[in-house]
């Protein structure tokens, strides 16, 4: 009798738990139905980080796109345009959190970047390359890739400010030579994109020469669409691939 009661109680409790769980599931869509009516379409937001895993000192390209938003901000960066691209150099693992607010509500997007500590310098402290590693770090901190509009090799305003910083850094470090690579998105022909990449790299070089950097310190090579940074057929990825990239020319 006692044990039968216990079994019964257990069954009742079990049924209650299952029942509540079921109710909870059913209620989920209801919450959106009961939300207060809003005056416009709900904003949408996408945020990607490429690559998602780096070594400390490496660059990450954040690119985002929103729709129907009146204000967009990324935590730690501040207010940003409704869509765009930004290069960041996180020192530690970071979750970039974007909030897009509009008349129709708000939308969030998050991109996580894992930053691995630089192990080489620790593992081989006596390595003579330690000093050149820090030169690379300094270079990467001061010299940022610039991005181009579709089928264009004109330097944009955001590229112009990055190039000014690059020119200042190169002027202060006259021993550094730079290889400028021109890159394109996957669309169109390999041959045409090689010339387009060439023109993008040349545009970056011309801007640096105008800023006083001797042209013999700047070498240009086009990679067309042969060496993409990402391979997705999305505008975010295409934007990342439409760039002029800078490396120390040794």
């Amino acid at each position, binding site marked *: 009798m006692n044990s039968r009661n216990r079994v019964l109680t257990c069954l009742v409790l079990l049924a209650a738990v299952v029942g509540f769980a079921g109710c909870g599931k059913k209620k989920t869509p209801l919450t959106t139905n009961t939300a207060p009516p809003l005056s416009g379409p709900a904003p949408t937001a996408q945020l990607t980080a490429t690559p998602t895993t780096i070594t400390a000192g490496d660059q990450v390209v954040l690119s985002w796109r929103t729709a129907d938003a009146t204000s967009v901000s990324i935590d730690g960066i501040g207010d940003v345009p409704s869509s765009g691209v930004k290069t960041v150099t996180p020192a530690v693992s970071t979750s970039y959190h974007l909030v897009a607010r509009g008349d129709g509500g708000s939308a969030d997007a998050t991109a996580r970047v894992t930053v691995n500590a630089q192990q080489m310098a620790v593992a081989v402290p006596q390595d003579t390359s330690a000093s050149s590693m820090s030169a690379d770090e300094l270079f990467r901190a001061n010299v940022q890739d610039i991005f181009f509009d579709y*089928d264009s090799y004109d330097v944009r305003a955001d590229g112009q400010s990055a190039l000014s910083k690059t020119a200042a850094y190169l002027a202060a470090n006259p021993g550094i030579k730079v290889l400028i690579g021109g890159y394109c998105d996957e669309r169109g*022909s390999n*041959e*045409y994109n*090689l*010339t387009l990449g*060439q023109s993008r790299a040349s545009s970056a070089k011309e801007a640096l020469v105008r800023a006083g950097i001797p042209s013999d310190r700047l070498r240009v*090579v086009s990679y067309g669409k042969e060496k993409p940074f990402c391979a997705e057929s999305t*505008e975010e990825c295409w934007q990342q691939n439409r760039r002029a990239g800078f490396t120390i020319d040794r």
Partner: protein
Amino acid sequence: MIALFRLLPRSLLWICLVLCSVSNTPVLKAQDWIRTGSGLSGQRIRLAAADFKPVGGDPQVPVLKASFDATLYNDLANAGIFDMVSKSMAPPVTPGSPQEINLTQWAADPANASMVAFGALSASSGRLVVNGWVFDAKNPGSPQVLGKQYNEVANEDNARLIAHRFADEIIARLGGGVNGIAETKLYFVSARTGTKEIWAMDYDGQNQHIVLKLGTTSMSPRISPDNSRLAFSSIGKEGWTIRMYSLELGRPVAFPAGVPGGSNFSPAWSADGVKVAFSSARSGDPEIWVADSSGGNARKLTAFRGPDVAPTWNPKTNSQIAWVSGRTGLPQIYIMDADGANIQRMTDGGYAISPSWSPGGQFLAFSWNRKYGPGAPGGQDIYVMDIASKRWIQLTHDAGSNDYPSWSPDGRHLVFERAIGRSTEIWTMLADGTEQHALTHSGKDFMPNWSWK
């Protein structure tokens, strides 16, 4: 109700079929001028290719015969000028000589052949001997149109080679004197080794092999008109340079004009083999340059801000060059005289690239996305334009992204690159867009170039 649901898909299918056939009709009409211009318009000759008669007890014979029969039939079917008698309709006989053929049997239904190709294949003492004939089935009094004998070392490659030669003899004899293409080669780029290298294959996709392994990205292979040298663009320590590889010597040869500036792309041979045009940014902006094929006398032909690339000579006259220019924004096809004068824009918008000038000088084949732009619905397709009238026809429809058309030397065929998703293959078709089929299957094959002979 259930019956209705069962019927619905079937009726939808019928509606689709009707719509498709309706939308195809104007395309077929528009093909008339391209069919005339490319030599595909004549009445197709009803041709039967009999299986050849095996002779001798050499154990190699069945294998060689199978390769020979398949290659000969395929070459004749590919030619674009024959209405082939399918093997299932041909009489089940293998006449090995003129004495053994019964022409009335071939002229009668269901074969209904006008012409019959037949013969015998034997192997003995390591030699492969093929005797082939073409007889006019409708002229039994004096039927012989062609008689050939071939004698090569007995192996499968030579069985295919002899079939190609015999097919080309038949095509030249019955096709208005235009040489066949069965012995031509295709050069292309393949990334099968992990790096884009220059590869080659027979025109029918057989015998695919790497030409030279550089271990760095190579692009834009262009074979010289005499088949002796291969020009291409490759990235190395000096950036992108035009390189020359001698197929006769089996090693690279110098091409000094293709080095300066580190941005040299897309070489193009003149039809006399004397000059090579290419794109170079040595003067700061990518322009079309031309140099002697020995690598001297480089000079600039274009001078306008914006990308200029992908030249192709008018092979009929050697006096004009078509190329791609981004001088007004999106790339368009232009033509000019070989000295840079008389520039004329050919395309009226969209994204137009990769011109190839037809052997007869009349047409440009190129890749065009007429509705190019972010989010635009356009596709990258192969088009042919009649240069004098600028009227054009679309040859590929709703099948991947198509680029790098290259004319066959007989002007009846095109080879091109088709990307579907991440998989890119070499395809071929007749110049009117029909009979499209893939020649490669690795998913990593690009930029085909058809040899000149």
